[in-house]
């Protein structure tokens, strides 16, 4: 059994299942992110691991012990909250001491451990500050130190960076990963921010409507999305309607133009062809690559990258280019052709719900 093991976990509020059949095995020392939009059940799952919610079905094991009926304060699980939840009546030092005091450590041990923690979060000088005297970033670091001080078996972070501004978020993200590697603690990180999940995690669990869509390394999730939802949720994506011309050869037709996928595709009248903006180019068409002709409709400057919109049929396709001082771009309105390797084609079947809607629509006609 894995270090943290969730098996068939279901959580219902009334008739509504907010988490449905969640099964996941997390190895010791692993950093796993739960990623999904609001209401996808990621926080509820985290709270079930912490013990603040009780699963309606299923089991949760932490290092071999079934914890479903164990009270939150006996689980040995550390938690960091979105709004820090530092005790306002205590200094940073006292906050970090709290868990150690509850666990009845000796005062010498407590002093040493608190110093250790303050060094870990680079806040040696700020131990005497109250939470309201610190910035959001400092408060969140203090809250991380408080959670880690008691040496929990599992560290849970519930959107810890979402209340902070972009610069601090990025710095603290790096710091959290460094501290996690240094302490080797098994970590579950809940976020709706794909960039956070991609940059921090050993593995990502993408969730939607209470279900797991895909579990994989950031590389797998980004490059080989298993479902249309994952494909559209992670990164920017151009999604085009395509008709299958030859399933075995992976031959498709997009707005009347021929495109080849890297391998065979599912047989069926229609599929979705997804293309990452950064995989498309206007120049150098390598041997065997695909090409689609269209009209340049718009150019958006985004700092380090420039995003071009190209109309193909009745859809607009976005193409990203790195910005350089010598960048020469065609004028808006010109005919261009976009090129992309066969491997860039992510071909997925339409969502069952959408397909059904399509059928109903066809019947209605």
């Amino acid at each position, binding site marked *: 059994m894995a270090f943290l093991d969730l098996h068939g976990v279901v959580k219902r509020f009334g008739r509504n299942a907010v988490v449905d059949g969640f099964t996941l095995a997390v190895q010791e020392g692993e950093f796993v992110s739960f990623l999904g939009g609001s209401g996808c059940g990621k926080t509820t799952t985290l709270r079930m691991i912490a013990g603040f919610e009780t699963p309606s079905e299923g089991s949760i094991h932490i290092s071999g012990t079934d914890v479903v009926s164990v009270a939150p304060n006996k689980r040995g699980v550390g938690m960091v909250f979105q709004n820090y939840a530092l005790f306002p*009546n205590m200094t940073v030092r006292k906050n970090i001491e709290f868990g150690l005091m509850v666990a009845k450590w000796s005062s010498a041990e407590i002093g040493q451990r608190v110093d250790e923690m303050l060094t870990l979060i680079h806040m040696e000088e700020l131990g005497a500050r109250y939470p309201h005297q610190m910035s959001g970033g400092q408060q969140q670091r203090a809250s991380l130190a408080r959670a880690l001080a008691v040496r929990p078996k599992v560290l849970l972070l519930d959107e810890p960076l979402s209340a902070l501004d972009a610069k601090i978020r990025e710095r603290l993200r790096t710091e959290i990963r460094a501290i996690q590697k240094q302490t080797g603690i098994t970590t579950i990180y809940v976020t709706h921010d794909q960039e956070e999940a991609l940059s921090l995690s050993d593995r990502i669990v993408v969730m939607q409507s209470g279900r797991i869509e895909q579990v994989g390394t950031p590389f797998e999730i980004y490059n080989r999305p298993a479902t249309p939802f994952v494909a559209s949720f992670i990164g920017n994506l151009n999604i085009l309607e395509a008709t299958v011309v030859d399933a075995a050869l992976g031959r498709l037709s997009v707005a009347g133009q021929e495109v080849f996928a890297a391998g065979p595709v599912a047989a069926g009248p229609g599929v979705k062809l997804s293309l990452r903006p950064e995989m498309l180019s206007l120049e150098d068409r390598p041997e065997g690559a695909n090409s689609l002709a269209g009209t340049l409709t718009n150019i958006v400057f985004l700092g380090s990258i420039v995003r071009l919109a190209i109309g193909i049929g009745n859809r607009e396709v976005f193409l990203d280019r790195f910005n350089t001082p010598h960048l020469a771009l065609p004028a808006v309105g010109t005919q261009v052709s976009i090129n992309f390797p066969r491997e860039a084609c992510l071909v997925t079947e339409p969502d069952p719900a959408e397909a059904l809607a399509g059928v109903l629509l066809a019947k209605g006609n």
Partner: protein
Amino acid sequence: MRARRGWAWMWMFLGSLYFFIPLLGTFLFSLHGKRGVLSFAAYHRVFADPHFLETFTFSLQMAILTIIVGLTLLIPTVIWIHLRAPWAKPIVETCSLLPFVIPPIVLVFGLIRMYSSPPFQIVSSRGLLVAGYVVLSFPYIYRSVDAGLRAIDLRGLTEAAQSLGAGWGTIMFRVVLPNMRVSLLSAAFLTFSIVIGELTLAVMLAWPAFGPYMAHVGRDLAYEPAAIAILSFLLTWGLIGLMQLASRSIGGQSSTLGGTH
């Protein structure tokens, strides 16, 4: 800009006149206890009357008991509502308004009818008086505690403490209550001021309390009631001063006080 500020000061001045002139009048009147000269004779007589101290001590004891019972009853209740039973909030809120709607005279007759015959023959016990006072101060205690809890992130703080291994005792006494100190103080002082001056319950249940004493003095004497009024005014302001002091010593938490009034 300057003219506008001048107006503001003028309104402020008029407002304080409205407030202070009657007070000043009462104070001056209270100094006329001895014919022809200004003196504190009325105050001397008030303090010399053994009933003053007796009734005040009695009401003080009742006030302290009411505060203890009221807070012990309501703090866990309101915390429970906040954490586990938000659906019960409108019910409790409506209940908390009942003491405003039902006059104390109705309450006390209800108490007498209910508790003057077996199986509950406790109409002459102090416990019943305290229970009645708890009902009267319920709205104030409830609102103060509720505002205090709303000012802190109760769920976040309790969950953080739980995840650090703390049980409910530690959570209450180390985390929740210290962060509600100001609102608890305000609940206590409001209760105190209600019980100290309360008349109906004390009279109908026949207790030698401070309220009936004040009413009695007011009926029979001229200058002493004015002296007592000034004394109780000073006492009230002293308590509010204490409240402010407590809120300042907590620092950064003073906003809680604003929420309770």
